[in-house]
Structure formats: structure tokens, C-alpha cells
């Protein structure tokens, strides 16, 4: 069975393979972006392997220690290892961004294909629904969710994902509509091919580059949103290692330990840069 998720991954795999369908898709800047993200992921998931530091363990005798062999990135104001905290924060940000993108992209793409393909009342209903969702103020919705369930990872996540599916829906619907009436799909249907084949051979190869671009931008937006919410203290709660939260915590020590404050800022910058580069210059 081909579930949407495997479909997404398989399609992505086909896109990443050089030469498939006329040239590699991941070329130039996209490759740099993917490489940057891969490095950050290796850092995030690899750091616990080389250092046994717990991101929450405090050592009040050794606060704001500059980077040394013992503490490779130094310690924060509570003596926690910045290496362990940054790694945990990147895991959190990347995981949340990936989940946000998937929960937005999967329903968006599926509903877009459904609306574009079926047309008629299904299409009208979904378009009205998506317009209604668009009218909801996204950030307010997030704040509302946070108010309902303070400090919860899930509330933040649902709030961010809830309005994001619409752009996928709109884009996929428009492309599907024009493709469904094209000779290539008419010919395949006459030859007896079913909807799954048509999605796999005709629709997905056209949609994948656009969805990848939107997904990368969406991921970047999600990371910024999480960090911003953390920074203004409505996001995740301490002692969670979160990039925005870390900035707030380290801000008072900007004079004594500027190198500490700079670390979460640099990591947010690199994460977003990697995703923007991955989004590519031209969404075709």
C-alpha cells in the first residue's frame, strides 16, 4: 500500500537522484542548503554520543565558563553544558519543523489533489473551507492554543500546522486542475491506469519540486516562529532547551559572556539559512 507519507518520501527520493527526469534537482544552492542541514543534524544527534552532559544538569560552581576542552561550547548562567543544550534545542527545532511541514503538506497535498481532480462540489467545499481557515489569524491561533495548554509542545505544534496546509492545498489544486485535463493524463486513463498510477507518474513529478520549495520555506518559518514564541516567553517553558528561550535566558549576560548569547542566534541563523537555500531559487 502506498500511504501518503511513503509517497512523499519515494517521490522525494526520485527527485534527489541525479539524472531522473532531466537533471538533478538538488543542484548548486539547494545542495549547499541540504549539506548545511545535514551538518546541523549530525551535530544535534551526534553531540550526545561524544559528550555525556545532560542539557538540564546544573553546576552552579561553574557558570558562564568560556569554551574549553572540558565544556566544548562553554556553560550557561546555571552551569549547564551549552553543547548539550544547543544539540537538544536543534533536535527540538528540526523535529518540530519537520512535523509541522509534514502535517501541513500531507493534508494540503491530498486535499489539493482531491479538489483539483474531482472538481464540482468537493472542490467548492474545500475552497470555501480553506478560505475560512485563511481568515483565521495564524499567530493569534497559536497564542490561543498556548493559553489553553501552556508550555505544551503539542499545542504549539497544532497551532503552527493548522493554517499552514492551505498554501499547499491552493498550489496543488491549481496544478492538478490543469494537469487532469491534459492529454498525458487522458491517455493514461484511456489505457486503463488507475488514480494511484496517475498520481505517481503524472501529478507527483510535477508537484514534488513545488512542494519541496514550499516545505523548506514552511520549515524556516516554523523554526522562526518557535524561537520567537520562546523568546517572548509564550512558547515552551524552562528548563526545556529551546533556541528562543536560550536567547532570553542568556540575554542578561550579554556583557560577561557574549559568546554564549551568540550561540543560539548563530544556530537559528544557520538552520533558517539551510532551509532557505534548500527551497531553491526557482519553484518552477
Amino acid at each position: 500500500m502506498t500511504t501518503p507519507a511513503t509517497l512523499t518520501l519515494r517521490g522525494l527520493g526520485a527527485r534527489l537522484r541525479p539524472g531522473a527526469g532531466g537533471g538533478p534537482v538538488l543542484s548548486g544552492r539547494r545542495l549547499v542548503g541540504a549539506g548545511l542541514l545535514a551538518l546541523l543534524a549530525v551535530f544535534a544527534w551526534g553531540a550526545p554520543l561524544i559528550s555525556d552532559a545532560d542539557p538540564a544538569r546544573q553546576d552552579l560552581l561553574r557558570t558562564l565558563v568560556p569554551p574549553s576542552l572540558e565544556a566544548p561550547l562553554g556553560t550557561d548562567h546555571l552551569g549547564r553544558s551549552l553543547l548539550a543544550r544547543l544539540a537538544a534545542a536543534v533536535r527540538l527545532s528540526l523535529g518540530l519543523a519537520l512535523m509541522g511541514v509534514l502535517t501541513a503538506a500531507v493534508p494540503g497535498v491530498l486535499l489539493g489533489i482531491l479538489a483539483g481532480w474531482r472538481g464540482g462540489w468537493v472542490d467548492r467545499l474545500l475552497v470555501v473551507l480553506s478560505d475560512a481557515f485563511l481568515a483565521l489569524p495564524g499567530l493569534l491561533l497559536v497564542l490561543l492554543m498556548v493559553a489553553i495548554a501552556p508550555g505544551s509542545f503539542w499545542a504549539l505544534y497544532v497551532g503552527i500546522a493548522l493554517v499552514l496546509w492551505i498554501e499547499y492545498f491552493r498550489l496543488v489544486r491549481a496544478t492538478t486542475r490543469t494537469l487532469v485535463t491534459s492529454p498525458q493524463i487522458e491517455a493514461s486513463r484511456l489505457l486503463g491506469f488507475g488514480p494511484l498510477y496517475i498520481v505517481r507518474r503524472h501529478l507527483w513529478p510535477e508537484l514534488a519540486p513545488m512542494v519541496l520549495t514550499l516545505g523548506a520555506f514552511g520549515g524556516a518559518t516554523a523554526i522562526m516562529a518557535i524561537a520567537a514564541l520562546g523568546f517572548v516567553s509564550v512558547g515552551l517553558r524552562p528548563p526545556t532547551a529551546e533556541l528562543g528561550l536560550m536567547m532570553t535566558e542568556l540575554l542578561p549576560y550579554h556583557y560577561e559572556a557574549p559568546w554564549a548569547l551568540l550561540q543560539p542566534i548563530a544556530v537559528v541563523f544557520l538552520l533558517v539559512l539551510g532551509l532557505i537555500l534548500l527551497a531553491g531559487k526557482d519553484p518552477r
Partner: protein
Amino acid sequence: MTVLLDLTEVAVASADAIVHPTSLTLTAGRPLTILGETGSGKSLLAQAVMGTLPAGLRAEGGIRLLGQDVGSLSPRQRRARWGRQISLLPQEPWLALDPTMKAAAQVAETYRHVAGSPPAEAAANARRDLRQLGLEGAEERLPGQLSGGMAQRVAFAAARARGARVVIADEPTSALDDDRRDEVVALLKREVDDGGGLLTITHDVAVARALGGDVIVFRDGRVEESGPAARVLTAPANPYARRLLAAEPAAWPALPPRRTGGGGPVLRAEGLRKQRGGRVLFEDLSVTAEAGEVVGVCGPSGCGKSTLGDICLGLLAADGGTVWRDPAAARVRWQKLYQDPPAAFPPHVTLRQALTDVVRLHRRDWSEVETLMARLRLVPALLDRHPRSVSGGELQRLAILRVLLVDPVFLFADEPTSRLDLMTQKETMDLLVGLARDRGCAVLLVSHDRALVDKVCDRTVRLDH
């Protein structure tokens, strides 16, 4: 006779298209036609004369326009001659006209900005020109509201407004059906009768014949044969020119007759009626197709030919009437061939993959593909390419191969050769008709080309407006 345009040893070189040194002379009052297939380099030659070669290409040799050497001039100096001494009648009038500007205004623009007349005078002149071209009443229409022939005449009026003595017409009739084609040819001929110079680029032998004057047969960037149309188009000496002329539908030998008593009817459509955009396309129309029979549908563009085919296939519903399809034949045995072959294949996979998918879905054997490839004279290497990198003729044969894999009883061929060259067209048609006969498949052939339909079809349905 005044020499208007004189080319001596003009050559264009690039990676994929080359024009070898070519000389020609265009005189006032005698049309000159360059006849050749797609990719023969004939359009490059026209672009070299105009000075509109794509970036990276350079023309060598001498180009003299109205006695002046223009080949060595700067692009800016050459542009100054456009519309004044030399003008180009574009291939697709709809693309050349501004879609948001009314017909008269488009022509007036030339008077206003190229000739420098005051606005009122420019508008009056534009209206006069359009009237002379039989476009009375169309002055205030937008290009989208004009027929192909009318749009071509508006483009002609705009190109000619400043009175350029040399007109280059690049495939002026490729987008038009037979009747409209004759109109455009008459228009071009009048230009010559008025003492202008006309250089026409075409792949259509009928256009060359109707224009008369001199003809140059062009292939692979070389002149194969040249001389008066009366001689070149009736008794060519060059073997290529002979083959080209023999490929004209009117010159085809009669196709093998249908074996009688073979098959019963597979399709019977009666009393069909279809309306589109408030206009009745056809009414009380009946079509029958028997196994192994080729039924032609012809008529001008926009008359509902393709709509009729789609109704027969069941892709569209008719507004009235009944369609009976042989219930003994599975749904998948009703197939279609498309006008633009690359558009009918999944664009992102190789042709081998596309065919493998069909073979697998219908549990056929790959050896059938190989047998058919040999029969359709297709080389295996094509299979590893993507649809867009295979020539139109080969891809149309692959499309035929693909539908044969499902053993069709009815095939709707929608202008299957209108984008192909004459020789490829003949080859494709021969194969299509041969297969219909052999396999007892009914073919509904839709075409704008009356001569072609008359030649290959057992029965013809004519649609008029």
C-alpha cells in the same frame, strides 16, 4: 527587373542547426519560396536576412537589401530598416499581435510610430488598410475575437503599414486550415503584383505551388534544387525534391482497400447534437465505424471535429443522440492518438518505463513491444529517452505502438500528423492504415487536410460551420 534582396554565400553555423553557404536573389514582382521540412534551416536563413538570429549565431556572407550591404551593419542600424524596407509576417499571428489591443489600433501604431504620422491620420490609414483587406467591421475587435485568417491579415496590415518593399513570410499558413490558407496566399500574391518582393518560408507544397514564381527546395541547410515553380514542383530533377513532392497527400497512391466481409460495426452514433458556448457545433449527425475501416472527419478549425471524436470515445457526453459501442469490446480497447505526441506521454519517465507500465498493467509480454518496434521501424535506443527528446514522427509511432498493446477495436486519431513533416506524415499514415486493416481496428481520423482524408479514408464525415 529590380533586385530587391540579394544573398551571396550566406552561411549560419551553430551546434545543432547549420545553413551552408546559400545564394539567392529576390526580384520585384516575382515571389520566391523556400520549401523545406522542419529543421532544414530555412527559418534561420530568414532570420539572417532580417537580422534576428538568436544570440550566439552569426551570419556570414553578403546580404544586400535594396542595393545596400546590410550584413555588416550594427543591429541598431538593421532595426531601423524593419518595417521601412523589410518586414516580417510572423508564423503565429495570435502571438504576434497584442492580445489587449484592438485590431485597428495595432495597425495605427505602425503608422504612428514607424511612419510618424499624426494620430488622426494614422487611425484613418489603419481603417483604410483593414477595409482593403476585407476586415470591415473587425476594426474594434481584439485578436482573441478574430479567426486565424483574420488575425493573419491584421498582422499583415501592421507589418506592411510603412510600405516595406520586401516582405518575409515565415510559415504564414501553418496555423490555418485550407480555406484560410488560400486567403493568405491570395493576400501575399497581391503584394507581389503591386511590385513588392516576397520571400516565403514554408513546408507546405500547396503554398509554394499557389504562389508560383521561383522555388528553392531546402534540406539540412543546403539548396537541393531551385528554379521556376512550374518546373521544380512538377518535374523535379533532385531525388529529395521528388520524394518531398510524392509525400504530398494529393500525390499518394491509393491505399490498400479494406478486406470486405471482415468485421461488423463497432460504433454507431446517431442523431448527435453538441453545443458549445451557445453555438451549435453539429446537429443530427450520424457516424458509423466498422472493424478495419478508416472513417475521416474533416472541416475547418473550431467546427467540432475533435469534440465529435471525444463523444465517440465516451470522453464527452453529447447533448443529444445515442452512441452505441460494441459491448463485446472492453473499455480499454477504445483508444486515442493525439495531435502533439510529446503531450500524450508521462514527461518525467523514459519511454521504456512508460511502455513497461502498460505491459505490466495489461499482463502483456515485453516481446510484443520488440516485435512492434521492428514493425514500426523504431530503434531500441529510443526507449531510454524522455518523450521531449524524441522526434515527433518517432514519438507518434511509439504512441501507435502503445495503443496497439491493448489491442484496440476503435482508435480516434485526432490530427495525428498535423505537427509532422510531409514525409513523416506519409509514413505514419501508411502505418496507421496498414495496422487498422491488419488488426481489424476502426480508425476515426480527424484532420483539417481534405486531400489527406480523401486519400486514406473509406468514408468521410464533413463538418461545416
